[in-house]
């Protein structure tokens, strides 16, 4: 681990008119660290994620990112071209609904290869070999490489989306409810896969979820949001085992025991 963070977020706020999307969010994220953002729907966690991933411009506040060359850049002052380049090289975004993150009408192989082609790889054989490798890493059979994701199950689609994002070796991945809408057994497999990939690749990730079990399994740190504000943050197991804010206590006490 380096001594410098990867992402520095300071007093980030997003208002929709007079309504608060998220307010005054401040944190640092280090390389290889997984931060879970939890809260119920409407708590502002998705707004925060969209601001951080520059899909949405905040009303105020700053976020700086340490580029691969070590330079710090303010995300909201970057040109759109730079931001988009960042989005498809050094960042990933895993949507809750795989259809939002995949091209449903092109093959699995092309879905994985798109980012490589976008950064200028023009060798078909090499692109395909990389796609095969990544499909196996997300446990998709090689013989599905030419199938369209439309023919895939929900879990497979989600794994394909992950492969598509990770193929360029990003350093930061945003995930919006990555296991939402999946069967429990499919969810478990996906979580295990994500956990392994994150560890093996040393990825930093910001995972938005309403599922505290997902947060515990994937993240080391956690922020609890309510009404757009961070009400509690800290080590994931500390927040879950010794919740201090009233809202966190409510959340934790609401978990169903199996």
């Amino acid at each position, binding site marked *: 681990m380096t001594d410098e963070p990867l992402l520095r977020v300071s007093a980030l706020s997003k208002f929709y008119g007079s309504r608060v999307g998220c307010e005054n969010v401040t944190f640092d994220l*280090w390389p290889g*660290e997984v931060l879970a953002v939890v809260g119920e729907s409407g708590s502002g966690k998705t707004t925060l994620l969209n601001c951080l991933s520059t899909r949405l411009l905040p009303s105020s506040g700053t976020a700086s990112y340490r580029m691969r060359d070590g330079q710090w850049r303010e995300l909201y002052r970057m040109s759109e071209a730079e931001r988009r380049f960042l989005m498809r090289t050094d960042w990933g975004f895993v949507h809750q609904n795989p259809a939002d993150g995949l091209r449903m009408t092109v093959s699995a192989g092309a879905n994985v290869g798109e980012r490589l082609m976008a950064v200028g790889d023009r060798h078909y054989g090499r692109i395909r070999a990389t796609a095969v490798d990544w499909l196996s890493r997300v446990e998709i059979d090689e013989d599905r490489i030419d199938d369209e994701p439309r023919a895939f199950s929900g879990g497979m689609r989600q794994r394909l989306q992950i492969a598509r994002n990770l193929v360029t070796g990003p350093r930061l991945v945003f995930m919006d409810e990555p296991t939402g809408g999946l069967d429990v057994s499919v969810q478990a497999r996906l979580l*295990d896969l994500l956990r392994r990939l994150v560890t093996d690749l040393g990825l930093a990730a910001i995972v938005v979820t309403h599922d505290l079990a997902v947060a*515990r399994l994937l993240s080391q740190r956690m922020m609890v949001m309510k009404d757009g504000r961070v009400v509690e943050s800290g080590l994931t197991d*500390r927040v879950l085992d*010794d919740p201090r804010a*009233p809202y966190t*206590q*409510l959340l934790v*006490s609401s978990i169903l025991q199996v």
Partner: protein
Amino acid sequence: MATPLVVSDVAKSFTMHLRDGVTLPVVAGVSFSIRTGECAVLGGPSGAGKSSILKMLYGNYAVDEGQIIVQHGNGLIDLASATPRTVLAIRRQTIGYVSQFLRTVPRVSALDVVAEPLVERGEDREAARAKARSLLAQLNLPEKLWALPPATFSGGEQQRVNIARGFITEHPILLLDEPTASLDAKNRDVVVELIAAKKAAGVALLGIFHDLDVRDAVADRVIDVTAFATGKVAA
């Protein structure tokens, strides 16, 4: 003799916001230190706050007051006020923890559950697995279970996986939360041996043992937690 862990004037209470903000004090004025090569045991009746103290020392519970000074690398760090990132580094390098219950991860084999802390510390995966095998063998976990995820194991089997996971690394400080609770006599003896080996290696150990035989076998001294009682008994 070095003192890698010094606890001074630590206090802990729980505020139950769902119960009209009632505050449940747990412990206060907790002060002790652990030296290398010794095994100290937290003593006192159930509910006296032994487990809470252990959890604070691991950063799992927040600390209201006081300091927990840990020798981390070449420096001293106050765990009570450390950032999450520092706590994680301390857990990775300095303080190991064997919890009462194993928190299992779906689809990960017992062998990999045990090997994981070593891999996290940068050890080669195969080397870590080899070490995990020998530990699981020592703890008499049937070999046919090694490749299975421990979620469906019995309490005793899970506990052994948990112990192996805690003992596999060479953390200079090791916290043990009732590691022998659901073990039979034979495996309790194995744990006693493992603890003795850690002591010989200069590890500072702090544990909770309800089993008096084990406690007598491993404890160099007992820290009486009732001395830190706040008058009320924690939930």
